[in-house]
């Protein structure tokens, strides 16, 4: 999502010049030509950054900063001051008042762009953290970012622990789950949301992207799901709502893939929508297997994304298997691939050990997972889960996953 810069100067030529310079860089540019309208504009819709002239009649730049810093929803908007050469006192007072940087007139347009990018780069993480800070009712200081980063990593780990370890026990169904975390903070998640006496919402997903924004996105999606999911809403509608929420609140390269569905215990149906997630398997008691492909795009990147639903009937003995790509992208051990070196090192291959060529055999893959499911379809859900884990361990020669892995198996009792 393009960031918005509010440019404030009483010199219309300078406004025009800055606008012409910044828009091609991908910013939305709003302008104001006096202090009062600048404050109004920022109050109405806080921009991502303000380029603010100091010397203006009536209300000068420093007064503008003071008013913005006094108001909750504008106090964290970064400000770069435009000052005349030699006005050292203005600069000092400006920085004291809370400006983030200053640029001396006459300026080089390249410097403006560079400073805008630098300040936004510094303050961007705050945007992700701010909602949390508001929730905590705490005043926010930029110095706290680093410390907070550590706390958030810990919070993400806790969040992961909050995922339901045990699948709920449901009349007529047998469920098992698996969640293995690698050391990095990443975003596999699942949840079971009771919707009514006879219906339960089931979600499994994977937040893409790294670090704190990804961890926060996972928290946000899980919370939103808990709040949004109602029995009467179709999974397609829920995914659309989550999509629009994430599109609005995050950058385009932060997104998730997920499947959400409603298991109806009396009708023995599963109605789902798949948002760009690796296709779950429906292993039928007839040995036939289908993939749950119906849905739409990955979640959170495109406003125009649309989603569809499908209902599958679960016969006695049918199984559904949901997974994240940490399972299918499990790397092979040397011995598993070459068939040689049996009994030697079973250490799994590190990523940089095969820079050049990657035969797809290097990865466990969907076909192996499907075969494992077919072969063990008669087992109870938890034993089936273990069979997959064992198969992965044999394939990779390691029991330590390098990526997060999540798995849900739902079987209808025979």
């Amino acid at each position, binding site marked *: 999502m*393009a960031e918005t810069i509010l440019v404030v100067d009483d010199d219309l030529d300078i406004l025009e010049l800055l606008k012409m310079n910044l828009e091609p860089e*991908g910013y939305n540019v709003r302008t104001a030509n006096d202090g009062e309208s600048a404050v109004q504009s920022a109050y109405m819709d806080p921009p991502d950054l303000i380029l603010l002239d100091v010397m203006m009649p009536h209300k000068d730049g420093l007064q503008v900063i003071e008013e913005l810093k006094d108001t909750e929803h504008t106090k964290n908007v970064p400000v770069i001051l435009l000052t005349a050469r030699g006005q050292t006192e203005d600069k000092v007072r400006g920085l004291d008042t809370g400006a983030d940087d200053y640029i001396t007139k006459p300026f080089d347009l390249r410097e403006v762009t560079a400073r805008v990018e630098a300040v936004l780069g510094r303050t961007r993480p705050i945007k992700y953290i701010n909602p949390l800070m508001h929730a905590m009712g705490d005043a926010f200081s930029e110095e706290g970012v680093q410390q907070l980063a550590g706390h958030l990593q810990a919070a993400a780990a806790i969040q992961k622990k909050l995922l339901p370890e045990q699948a709920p026990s449901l009349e007529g169904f047998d469920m098992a789950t698996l969640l293995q975390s690698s050391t990095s903070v990443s975003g596999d998640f699942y949840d079971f949301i009771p919707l009514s006496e006879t219906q339960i919402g089931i979600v499994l997903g994977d937040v*893409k*992207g*790294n670090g704190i924004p990804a961890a926060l996105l996972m928290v946000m999606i899980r919370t939103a799901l808990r709040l949004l999911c109602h029995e009467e809403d179709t999974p397609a509608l829920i995914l659309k709502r989550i999509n629009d929420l994430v599109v609005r609140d995050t*950058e*385009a*390269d*932060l*997104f998730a*893939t997920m499947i959400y569905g409603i298991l109806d215990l009396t009708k023995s149906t599963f109605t789902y929508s798949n948002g*760009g*997630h*690796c*296709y779950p398997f429906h292993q039928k008691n007839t040995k036939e297997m289908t993939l749950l492909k119906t*849905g*739409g*795009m*990955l979640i959170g*990147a*495109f406003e*125009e994304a649309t989603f569809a639903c499908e209902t599958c009937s679960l016969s006695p003995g049918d199984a559904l298997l949901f997974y994240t790509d940490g399972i299918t992208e499990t790397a092979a051990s040397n011995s598993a691939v070459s068939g040689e070196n049996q009994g030697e090192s079973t250490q799994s291959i590190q*990523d940089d050990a095969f*820079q*050049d*060529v*990657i035969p*797809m055999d290097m990865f466990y893959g969907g076909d192996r997972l499907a075969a494992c499911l077919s072969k063990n379809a008669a087992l109870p859900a938890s034993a089936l889960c273990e069979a997959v884990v064992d198969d992965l361990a044999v394939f990779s020669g390691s029991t330590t996953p390098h990526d997060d892995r999540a798995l849900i198996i739902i079987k209808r009792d025979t």
Partner: protein
Amino acid sequence: MNFETTIGEENISILHVEGKILGNAADVFRRKMNDQLQTGRDKLVVNLMNVPLIDSSALGAIVITLKSCQQSGGKLVLLSPQKAVREVLEVTQLNTVIEIYDTEEGACAAFA
């Protein structure tokens, strides 16, 4: 991972990528695409013929570049993704918003 950019007719940039695009390599990939946009070239063909594998970071780079191209009135199209890459594009349904071509001629004709 290697990159080479050729400029075709109508100022179309063709970015030839070689090697898998995983993890931090996606940042380089994104920068290479962005370099073209920065010089005003928003008609971008990304040749994936020699890319055996991509991950979600690479998808993110493609998504964000696609959006930048669209915002400036340009377009990003993909050329000859291999099976594994094509599958990722299908599962995520990015193939519904990004045009994919099997020949360079076809890809370039997309900008006509």
